[in-house]
Structures are given as structure tokens and as C-alpha cells.
């Protein structure tokens, strides 16, 4: 198989910082919510850690955003602005994960420099990075100092509403992270995509070679 450089260094730094941070946020978040039932950290340590990691990840988010806004790599999220092609590709990808993969069909998506993501990934990551993550960061900042942002918190319906939104997204990420890790193991070998996110190089079929199952 050939090697293709699809994960530039800034993306890899962002990804692993984000991954490590999210795990810490989930662990400290669980601790904050279930004091007395879970004993990973003291409540105070969990609060301090949760706040610091949150701010580091906000800064990290802007590293990601800056990289994609100021490079042509932003194309990986929308290589073609064709809804018809996109939905067709999404359907093929769902069909593959839900049926074809069991039969041993080839993956319909072929990685290239500007087609790093399959259709499902590109849509899901855009929703996560442009909607879900910013809401989570914003609600986290509001909860970090409720009194300072009391006017905004009130306008959004009160501290309980803001917290519930934060918790709902936390629940989503708890599920997402499990599925994300599993899907990442569905490369041509279980560790292929993990290695690619470390080295930057994804294994791709040689031109003319039969597609990998």
C-alpha cells in the first residue's frame, strides 16, 4: 500500500490535545455530577481541572479553526458542493457500515489529500465542530462564572437551563467518543487510522490495485 500525507501536524496536535482533553473533561464532569458515587478526584480538584482543561480546549479549538480557515485544507470538509452527490455518497457509506462491511464489500470511500473524510464524517465533524462544540464551550464558560455572566445566563433561561444544555452535550460526547474510537478501528487494520493520526500518513491503495476490504 502507498502512504498519503493527509493529517498535517497542526491537525494532529489539535486532535490528540482535543482527545486527551475530552477524556479529562468527561472524567471530571462525571466526578462533578456524581460526588459520593464516584471517587476519581476531590470535588474541588475536579472543578479546577475541568475549568483549566476547558479553557485549553477552547484555545485548541481556535488552533483548529485557524488552520482550516487559513489553508486550502478546508476543502476536506466539502470537496464538492453538490448536495445530490453528497447524499448519494452518504447513503453508500451507511450501506457499507450497515451491510457491505459484513459481506466484505470494499469501502466506497477512497482517501485522497482533499477527500480525507467520507461523506458521513465530513457532515458529522462539521456539525460537531461548528455547532455542538461551540455551544459546549460557551455554556461551559457561562457556568465557570455564573455571576459574571448572569445577564446572559438569565436571557438563556437561567443557570439550570444552561447546565442542562451543557449536560446534554456531555452525554452526546460520552456516546460519540465510544463510537468514534470503534469506527476508527475499521481501517484496513484495526490500528491503521490511529497510526495515521500519529504519523500523518494514511495507507491508501496503490493506483490500479484492488480496493481493500
Amino acid at each position, binding site marked *: 500500500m502507498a502512504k498519503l500525507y493527509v493529517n498535517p501536524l497542526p491537525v494532529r496536535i489539535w486532535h490528540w490535545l482535543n482527545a486527551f482533553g475530552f477524556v479529562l473533561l468527561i472524567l471530571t464532569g462525571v466526578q462533578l455530577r456524581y460526588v459520593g458515587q464516584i471517587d476519581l478526584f476531590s470535588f474541588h480538584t475536579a472543578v479546577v481541572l475541568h475549568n483549566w482543561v476547558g479553557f485549553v480546549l477552547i484555545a485548541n479549538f481556535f488552533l483548529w479553526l485557524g488552520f482550516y480557515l487559513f489553508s486550502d485544507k478546508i476543502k476536506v470538509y466539502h470537496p464538492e458542493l453538490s448536495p445530490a452527490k453528497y447524499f448519494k455518497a452518504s447513503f453508500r457509506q451507511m450501506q457499507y457500515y450497515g451491510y457491505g462491511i459484513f459481506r466484505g464489500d470494499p469501502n466506497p470511500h477512497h482517501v485522497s489529500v482533499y477527500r480525507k473524510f467520507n461523506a458521513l464524517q465530513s457532515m458529522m465533524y462539521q456539525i460537531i465542530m461548528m455547532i455542538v462544540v461551540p455551544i459546549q464551550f460557551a455554556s461551559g464558560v457561562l457556568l465557570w462564572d455564573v*455571576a459574571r455572566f448572569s445577564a446572559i445566563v438569565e436571557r438563556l433561561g437561567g443557570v439550570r437551563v444552561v*447546565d442542562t444544555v451543557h449536560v446534554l452535550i456531555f452525554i452526546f460526547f460520552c456516546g460519540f467518543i465510544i463510537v468514534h474510537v470503534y469506527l476508527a478501528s475499521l481501517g484496513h487494520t484495526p490500528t491503521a487510522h490511529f497510526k495515521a493520526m500519529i504519523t500523518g500518513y494514511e495507507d491508501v491503495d496503490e493506483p490500479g490495485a484492488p480496493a481493500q476490504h
Partner: protein
Amino acid sequence: MNHMAKRARAALSSLPGSLIVAAFLFLGLAAAPMMAAGAESKLSKEDEACLKCHDKEVGKEHLQKKTEDGKTLSLDVSTKAFIESMHNGTACEDCHDSLDGKTHGKVKTPLASRRELSKSMQGSCVTCHKKKVKQYDDSIHAAQIKQGNDKAPLCSDCHSPHTQPSMKAPMPIEQTPCASCHKDIFKAWAADVHGQERVAKGKTAPICADCHAAHEVKAASLGDALRDGCLKCHKEATQQHKDWLPNAALHFEAVACAACHAPNAERRVNLRLFDAGTNKQLAEKVGVPRFLKRTSAADVANMGLDERALWSLLNEFSRDSGSSGQTILRGRLEVKSGVQAHQLAEKGKALKDCATCHQQGAEPFQSVIVTIAGPDGRPLRHGVQKDVLTSLTAMESVRGFYALGSTRVKLLDYLLILVVCGAAAVPLGHMTVKWAFRGYRERRAAEERAAAAAAAAQSTTPPGQNPGDASR
């Protein structure tokens, strides 16, 4: 002080001029201040005439009066105590100006009670103490009197008009006027960190009026005046809390100081009715008892308001405000009684363990009340079922109160379990199906390899030769 100066001038002017000249000649100018001081404590002939009868030491008779409530009212005024009092510059008739000299002491005038006398004399205090009386008029004590309370203090219940010493002079704590009504609270204070500092160590630790104000006393559980009172002395407290307490400003708003600094007290959640528009606590109007009527109607069994009843209560109060405002609840953690609020411990003993409040089933969240300011300033309370703090459907009602861990919405816990289990089921299910299909994939791969090999062999066989010939 103006009164005293006037009295001194009056006393001097009443002396024969030759005597004054002689005094200056013999004693010199240096003696003048002493003389003035002596003149201040002298009484006018009119006052002496009053005390001739009213001071039992002078008149040799203890004047008393039977009031209509069957009690005996002493009319005794000690000359000595009066001269030593802050009112020694005030003439008797300055306050007792309604007495008729011709009939006084000769014609019996009926008097309902000592309290009625105090009430009738209340107006005379205003003449000199306008500012204090105005402050008093805004107080919970004055509001209670307007509401018909016959025990709330009048001026003379705290200040004895004929013997009142300077309020700036140190006073033995047992003479603190508040103690006569608020006995239990005073006893608790005397034993707590402030009382101990003041009594045992003789330091200037706060006594009642330092926190509650002497005249503009408000209900302790209303507003934030008490917290501000604490911070007035403990100026460093804000920063000290910020140094270790996350969301310190929110804690200052939502947790009464005593909730942590009286570690042995029982705590509860007080959901206070607020007008969202004006951001002021809602108050009942005199003669319109909406709160008690509505809460008792919604909670006939007196089990505490449930989430539906609480929601209805908020809507009813919102409707009263019309389009001008919406009624919301602002929660605060507080101690259950005034006595407990005065059991403040030393700083080192204050609660600092976050888990005291931030865990499921935490003690402070087992008792919940909803309150409104009553027409006399005191809060009117009604119990609320504790489940409203953890219910998803009560989110709108208690949107302004949330404590991590202890008031978390239970439904979200179930959702978390469901999502995590669901997400874990995806790879497990997917791997299981993949494993079940492994034979199929192997057969298919073998067939494809065979087909590919056949195709390759076909492509390498010379034209006219059967590929099967190769095996032969």
C-alpha cells in the same frame, strides 16, 4: 447638643449679673468651662417642680397610676438618673407638652395601658430625632405595629426616656434592648464567635445593631443586607473566598453566610419570589393575602407544593403583574432559624467540604420552602416538595437555582446510562455481526481470489489453447 447649649445659656441668664462678675474675678477665665458644665446639669424651676412630685426620693411618695388594663404604672423619675441621661438638656414639657398645668395631678385622666402611653409619646421623639424615627418608620418593627402587632417595639421599649445614657457609651450586653424580645437569639449570639469575642475577650465584635441596624431593622431573611453587613467588617472575605471557592460570586448570592459559618445549623433551600423585570423580591400588599391563600389552596394536605402547584403559583403572581413583569424564583441556601443563624463558629470550623452540598441527597436540599415578603416585612413561607429541585418538568420554575450534584435532573442520569449503553452496544453488535459473517467473507474472498487467478490464467493462455490443458 443645641438643647444643652440653650439650657446652659438660659441658666446663666437667670443668675444675677453681679454674681457672674464675682465668679469671674475669683476663679478667672479658666473656671468658665467647669461652670458651664455645672449649669448644663442644673434643672429649670419648672423641671424641679415636676420632679418634686415625680421623684420619689424628693417627694417621698412613689407616684403610680392604675391603667385600664389593671396594671400599675410607675410615674417615678429619678432626678439623679435624669441629670445623668442624654435627655438632661430637654425640659419635661418638651415631651409632655399636652399636659394641662391647671388640671395635672388634680383630675384623674384615664389611661388604657403603658403601651398606649408609649404610643402617644412616640410623636415627641420626632421633634429631635427626625432621622432615626424615619429609619424606624421603614423598619419591620414599625410595619408590625401598623399591622396591629401590640408587641413590636416602640421608641420607649428600647430607650428609656428619663434615664437614657449615650448610645455611643459601652453598654453591658445584658442591657441590649433587643434581648428583651429576642431572648433565644441573643442567647445563641452570646455563645457564638461574635458574642464570645465581645463578652469574654472584650473586643468590639458586632452586637445586634451592627448587623441588623438599630432603627431600620429589616427581616433577616429578606434581601442581601446581612451578607453586606458581614462584608462590611470582613472586607478581606470576598478575596479569600475567591482564592479557593469556584464560582465564589455565585456562592455569595445563593448561599447565606451562616449556611457555612454556622456548621451545626440545619439548612434549607429558600425559593424567593422575585419580579424578573425589576429584580426585586415580591411583597404582599396590606389587606391582600394572595400568597397564603394561593399556597394553602394548592396544598390542602399541607405536604408541600409539587411542581405543578409551584408552576401555577408563579403564573398567578405573573398575571398579577400584568405585562410589566414575570414572577420567577431565586433560590438561596440558608439556615432554618434565627437562633441557628447566630451560632457562628470560628473561621477554621466553617464548612469547606464541597461535598456537604454537592452530592445527591445532601442535607441542605432536603427541605425546600417558597417565600414572599409579607406586608410587615417578614417572610411568609410555604413548604415545597424537595423533588422539584431534581425534576425536568420543574426546570422552568426553578431555573434560577442549581447546585451541582445535589439538584441534578434525574432524567438526565437515565439518559446518560442509555446513551453510554447504546453507544457501547454499537461496536459490540457490529463486531458480533462481523464475526458471524466471517465465514461468508472468507468464502467470498476465496472465490474472488480463485476467479482472479482464473482470469489471470485466462489472460496468459495462448489463443486456441484451453486453459484446462495447463493442468494436464
